[in-house]
């Protein structure tokens, strides 16, 4: 292993120590309607926003949006639509033909339409990617302005895996034509309640 020789070379070649910058987050403040900005961005990235007053009608709304969905995974107790149970032990390969997945998102980001999904909430890491359609359910008061606030909010968690999801999977690799649905979910709906 080259560990020692690499570290030695770095030590010899690096410049004099430069200190960490003092970061003043107030320069990024914006006085805006967070939900409005989030909506703008989620639509810009190809997702859909559904605003609800509480979760009582959640399942009804989902059924109207995805009437064809048969194989459904629900990772939250507020939705009873799940037809395929999952646990930490589920082999992700068996999730290959899941139509729809419903997951709770802990935080949303107004500036970019992203939702933070932690491993605990997605249960199986592959799930939010392998599912055909994805629904993320986020409380309205969990919408933050920017990424700095989110990293502050998640700083106390147990670190295993987590992901920011902003819209459905997409590609523009063929002549820059945007096509939604590359390898991950083909559609994304964020429910704010």
């Amino acid at each position, binding site marked *: 292993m*080259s560990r020692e020789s690499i570290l030695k070379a770095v030590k010899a070649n690096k410049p004099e120590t430069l200190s960490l910058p003092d970061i003043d987050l107030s320069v990024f403040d914006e006085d805006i309607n967070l939900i409005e900005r989030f909506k703008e961005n989620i639509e810009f*990235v190809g997702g859909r926003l559904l605003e609800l007053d509480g979760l009582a009608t959640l399942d009804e709304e989902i059924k109207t949006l995805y009437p064809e969905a048969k194989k459904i995974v629900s990772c939250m107790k507020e939705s009873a639509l799940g037809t395929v149970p999952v646990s930490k032990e589920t082999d992700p390969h068996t999730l290959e033909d899941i139509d729809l997945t419903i997951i709770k998102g802990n935080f949303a980001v107004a500036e970019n339409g992203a939702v933070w999904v932690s491993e605990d909430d997605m249960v199986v890491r592959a799930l939010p990617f392998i599912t055909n359609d994805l629904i993320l359910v986020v409380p309205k008061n969990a919408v933050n302005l920017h990424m700095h606030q989110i990293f502050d909010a998640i700083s106390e968690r147990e670190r295993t895996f987590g*992901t920011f999801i902003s819209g459905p*999977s*997409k590609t523009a690799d063929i002549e820059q034509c945007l096509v939604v649905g590359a390898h991950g979910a083909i559609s994304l709906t964020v429910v704010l309640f």
Partner: protein
Amino acid sequence: MAHAEAAAKFNENEAKVNWHDKALWFVRQKRDKQAHKIQGWEQLRDYASALKANVLSNLDNYLVQFEENAKKNGVTVHWAANAEEHNKIIHSILQKHNAKKIVKSKSMLTEECHLNPFLEANDIEVIDTDLGERIVQLAKEPPSHIVLPAIHKTKEEVDELFQEHLGTKPSGGNPEYLTREARKHLRNKFLQADAAITGVNFAVADTGGFVVCTNEGNADMGAHLAKVHIACMGMEKLIPQEKHLGIFLRLLARSATGQPITTYSSYFNKPEEGKEMHIIIVDNGRTEQLSREDFRRSLHCIRCGACMNTCPIYRRSGGHSYDATIPGPIGSILSPGKDLTKHSSLPFASTLCGSCSDVCPVKINIHEQLYKWRQIIVKDVPQPTVKKNIMKAAGSILAKPKTYDFVGKSTRFMLKHTPKSLINSKINTWGHARDLPEVKGDNFEEWYKKRQKNE
């Protein structure tokens, strides 16, 4: 082949060049829109630059801290001094698991290390899963852009490639249809893969975690399905603390494609139960670049590609003309550090307009470094006689005001009266596709004097 010759080849297809030029400029404009939309963009760039400078000045300690934390998380950390060692480490991990089918998401580092041919020679199938990378892999070409690997390919070319390799129907290059077919084809590969290889966008010293960004979801599909995940990172990918991810994630996608963030920004800290996660920290010339005071800032690069999209030379010469893993302005300052003779024409593939430095999210002084390489190259690498003599003449003329004045007058005379045959002659490469400008009456000094006298 020197850059200019390769660029001339690319320019043989004028319609394609025009499209390439416009498509990339469009991406640059999208970047501007996103950058102007948020509060404090310039401040973000300043912070990112200062953070990267701090990282380089303390890199050994951050590397050790990162390793320690990653190990605590149950991740195996490897160190590779060069491409060969990197490839061997990967091979030995794969052998241990008897892994024969590999899926790989975008990683310029594995391109730099020529990992694919190495694995293939060892009877291991490696599939690039980013759609653009899969396209160039099927075409047996290297990527021509670090973010848009197949930007040089037309949809009709992709159509033909897919017919040949994936058995698709002729579609006249329907992007929707071709993407769906690629999704099916690669889904199978994901489901069958024994191991997944990904790059690393950012590695966090104080948590031992790392972030991988994609729009397609291919890094996650690979990493979460296979039993083994190997993440390859250049040693400069480190950032000090988790909260600094906020700064870099805000900059990366906006600079790259004009999206507010990539679709997926996945943050890996611990392997799943029963699975393995490996990180390979690679030097491969980076410590050497670190020693070069004038060029070390090139290690700030977060591989967003913005300098390529904005560069008037890149847009009109195509990524392959650089004959280097990383093309474009940043590649032209990284490559000479690896092989000065081979890449000596690259720092000249620039107008030094500075647009690259203006858009760079980590504020690398790219055009200044290009200029510095030129100074080294004209000293160290033999130059063609024509260029040398012109440069010499120009140097001595510019140094003497009287001569400059005289030469200026006669140049304007020559511009008006030189026959085209001389300008577009064989010896003068510069004139191949150019005409001299039309000369308006006065030179600046004459015009200024007249203006003072209100003439």
